[in-house]
């Protein structure tokens, strides 16, 4: 309930050490921001690959990648599937046999590449699923 949560929050703000202790004790808690599943930056540079003579645009693109733990509890911001939530619980009950869900892309975007072919014709092509827009637990 809201009133209960407010009360807890007040307690948390007055006792920060207690709160951090409980966080460190719960090694499966996803609020540990160090390891939570999230999007990371990864830039693919066509220029670095030495392709600027045939790729007209873009110079490169932000491909990104997903990395991090999918641990209990899976909060809404992690874009977890229903199955991932169940799998997390089963993992807690049976960690030896059932792994944690994977941190993977949930939303991928396309990029367009403009390039010359061998005959100096120009090609503009759309490539699907090249850019990670959002990550989540699957």
């Amino acid at each position, binding site marked *: 309930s809201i009133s209960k949560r407010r009360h807890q929050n007040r307690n948390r703000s007055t006792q920060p050490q207690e709160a951090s202790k409980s966080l460190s004790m719960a090694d499966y808690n996803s609020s540990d921001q160090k390891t939570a599943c999230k999007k990371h930056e990864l830039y693919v540079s066509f220029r670095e690959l030495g392709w600027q003579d045939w790729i007209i645009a873009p110079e490169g693109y932000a491909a990104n990648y997903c990395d991090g733990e999918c641990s209990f509890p899976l909060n809404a911001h992690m874009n977890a599937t229903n199955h991932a939530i169940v799998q997390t619980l089963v993992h807690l009950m049976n960690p030896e046999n059932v792994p944690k869900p994977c941190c993977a892309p949930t939303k991928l975007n396309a990029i*367009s590449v*403009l390039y010359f*072919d061998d005959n100096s014709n120009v090609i503009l092509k759309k490539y699907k699923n090249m850019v990670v827009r959002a990550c989540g637990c699957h």
Partner: protein
Amino acid sequence: GCSHYLFDGNSEVQSNFIQRRLRISEKREMQKEILSILGLPQRPRPHVSHSKFNSAPLFMLDLYNTISEEEEVPNPHRFVLATEGPPLASAQDSAFLSDADMVMSFVSLAEHDMEISLQRRHFRAFKFNLSQIPDGEAMTASELRIYKECTSQVYENGTFLLSIYQVVQEHQDRDADLFLLESRTLWTAEEGWLEFDITATSNLWVMSPHHNMGLQISVETSSGRSLRPEEAGLVGRSGALEKQPFMVAFFKVSEAHVRSTR
């Protein structure tokens, strides 16, 4: 490798990343993988000296910038090859573009102005190589684009007739057999890109390349006098680079791209 710590307010966020130059073999492997994703067997080796500033790349760049603006991905800088003029792509091109997975431009391999002496008929011939179209791409539309400049010469009614033909059969001893694709009345004062729909013809060329004998255009006054294309202001090989005629085709993927196992 090195560890890098990011500080976000009170929480310490650690991210480990490798920051080093790739070895030559690793770079080659990376290039091979990305080329495979792009559907290319090897990196193209175009002969681009000044062709970067030709009308076809400029037109394609215009389309690229249109797509980038529509996509959610932020495009911090518009790509510009030469001085930016008015957009080359028309509203119709944008409509084709929204439905296309691939757009390809073709430069004319053989463009020559000729005259058939007995009839004093002038024409300009074009030839395009469509053999490099990747497998699994279905052509949805194609256009021949010719730039027309304003001409100072005034003909009857201030207009002339431009006709575009598909070459059906070539002969050693007589004129080629032609199939009329379109005729259009143009004003002498008119200036800008002329777009001719050649979808049916180019689809025929893709399906049976031996039928690809090119296109011809001819211009005549309303009284039927044949004009040289440049008299009508139609820019050819000797004209400005950014006004060179070219062909553009729009494609839709008709089959899933399967990458080969390595």
